[in-house]
C-alpha cells in the first residue's frame, strides 16, 4: 500500500493481489472506476455499462475455456470496473474467450460478457498491447489478411500464413494433407469480384494506434 495525496485527502491505495499480472503498475491502481478510460471505452463499444455486472461469477462457472484462463472472466470485468486498465489489457482471458456466448446467455443481470471480451481485445489491439496468447492473435491476423486480400477466407493460404508467422510448422500436418486429398482445401483462393468494397472496409476500419486517452 502507498499513500497519495488526492483532492486534499490522504487516500490509502489498495494493492491488488498476485493474480493480477505483475505489470499492474501500482501507479495505475487507484480505482477511479466508471471514469476510467477503459470503462468508458468499453461502454462505448458495447452499449452497456460495466457496472451492470454484479460479480456473481455465473459466467466464469459456465465458461468452457475457464480451465485454461489465469483470470476468471468476471475478474476481467472487475478490473475494468475498478479502472485497472493494464490488468485488463494484459490479461490473456479475453484472448482465450471463444466467443461462445454461454456467459451472456446465462448472466442474471443481462450483461453481455462476450461482447465485453470483444471490446477489451479490440482496445488492447488499438493500444498496441501484445498478448501472450500469440498463436491466437496471429491466427486472427492471418485470417483477416486472407479476407482482406480475397474477400473470403482462403484456407490453404491461411494455414500457410499462420504457420509462417507462428513457426508452428508441424502441428497440423495430420490434417492438411488429408484435407487436400479430400478436396477440402482448395489450392487456389475463391476471390470476390468487388474487392474494392472489401478493401475499402478494411481501409476505413483498420486500427490506428491510439494513445492513452
Amino acid at each position, binding site marked *: 500500500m502507498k499513500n497519495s495525496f488526492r483532492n486534499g485527502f490522504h487516500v490509502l491505495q489498495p494493492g491488488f493481489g498476485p493474480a493480477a499480472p505483475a505489470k499492474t503498475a501500482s501507479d495505475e491502481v487507484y480505482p477511479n472506476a466508471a471514469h476510467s478510460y477503459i470503462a468508458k471505452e468499453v461502454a462505448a463499444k458495447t452499449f452497456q455499462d460495466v457496472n451492470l455486472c454484479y460479480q456473481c461469477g455465473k459466467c466464469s462457472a459456465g465458461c468452457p475455456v475457464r480451465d485454461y484462463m489465469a483470470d476468471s472472466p468476471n475478474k476481467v470485468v472487475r478490473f475494468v470496473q475498478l479502472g485497472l486498465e493494464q490488468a485488463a489489457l494484459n490479461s490473456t482471458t479475453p484472448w482465450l474467450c471463444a466467443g461462445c456466448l454461454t456467459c451472456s*446467455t446465462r448472466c442474471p443481470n443481462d450483461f*453481455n460478457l462476450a461482447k465485453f471480451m470483444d471490446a477489451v481485445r479490440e482496445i488492447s489491439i488499438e493500444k498496441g498491447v501484445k498478448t501472450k*496468447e500469440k498463436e491466437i492473435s496471429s491466427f*486472427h491476423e492471418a485470417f483477416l489478411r486472407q*479476407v482482406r486480400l480475397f474477400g473470403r477466407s482462403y484456407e490453404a493460404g491461411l494455414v500457410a500464413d499462420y504457420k509462417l508467422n507462428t513457426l508452428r510448422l508441424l502441428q497440423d500436418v495430420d490434417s492438411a494433407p488429408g484435407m487436400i486429398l479430400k478436396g477440402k482445401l482448395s489450392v487456389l483462393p475463391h476471390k470476390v469480384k468487388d474487392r474494392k468494397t472489401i478493401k475499402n472496409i478494411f481501409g*476505413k*476500419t483498420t486500427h490506428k494506434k491510439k494513445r492513452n486517452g
Partner: protein
Amino acid sequence: MADAGLTYGYFPGCSQKGSAREYEMSLLKVAGKLGIDLKEIDDWSCCGATSAHATNHRLANALAMRNMLLAEQQGLETLVAPCAACFNRLITTKAECRNHPESKKDVEELLSASVSNTTSILNVIDLFDKASNGLIGSGRVRDMKGLKAACYYGCLLVRPPELIDTDDSEQPDSMERIVKATGADVVEWNYRTECCGAAHSISRRDIVVDLSKRIIDDALMHGANVIIVACPMCHTNLDMRQRVMRRMYPSHKEIPVLYLTELIGLSLGFTESELGIDLHYIRFNMPNEIMNQTAQA
C-alpha cells in the same frame, strides 16, 4: 416458412466451399428434393467470422452487413446461412444496427450504401424444423431407425436467446424433432449446447481437443452411435480432431459425426457419396437395419 417451391437466398460462407464441402453438397441435394430453391447470393464475401468480431467490431459489422445488403439488392428477403458462425454474425449485426442507429450509420458509411436491414436470416435447423413433419416424413424412403443420435447444437445455434427463435436455449429440442422425423432415435445427453472451442481450432488445438473430447465422451456415455451437427466448425472439431484424440488417448472410442443435412439426405434416399459422407475422417457405417430396408426396397 420452408414451404415447398419457395426460393431463399443462400449464403454459403467460406467453409462450405472448402473444409465443409460435404455440408453444401448435402444441403443442396436435400433442399432440391424437398422443393426448396436456394439461390446463392452473387459475389458474397466472408462474414468476418470470429476473427473479425474478436478484434475489430466495426469491421465485423461491415463484413456481415455487406452480404445482407447484397441479398437486399438481389431481391432476396430471406437468407439461409448454414454455418452457425455466419448465422450468428449476421443476426448479431442485424440486431445491433436495428438497436443502435449510430452503428447502422457507421456500417452504411463503410459500405457507401444505405441498408434497409430487413433481411431475415435462417439457419439450417430453422429451415427444416418447420418442414420436418410433413416434408421429411413424406419424402422419406429410409427409416433411420437404429441410429442413436446425439444432437449437438454447440453454442451459436441457440444463442443469444433473444435473437433466436428457439423454444429454450438451455434445453432446445428443435434438432431432435427433425432427427426424429427421419426415424432415428435421439439420446438424452449433457453436452448439447457446450462449446467445442471452435474459434481456437487452429491456434489452440490443445483446448479444442480437450473440449471436443469431453463432448464426444458424453455422447458415447449416453449411448449415442452418431453425433449430428449443423455447423462446419463443430464438424471439424468433432470429426477431424478425433484423429488427434486417438493418438493422445489410446482408449478413445470413435463415433461418426454427420451433418444434419446428411442425415436428412440419407432418409430421403441419397447415397453416402452423393452426400459427401465419405469425405469424413471418421467412417460412418449405416446400421444393418437401414441397409436391409434399402435391400428390400
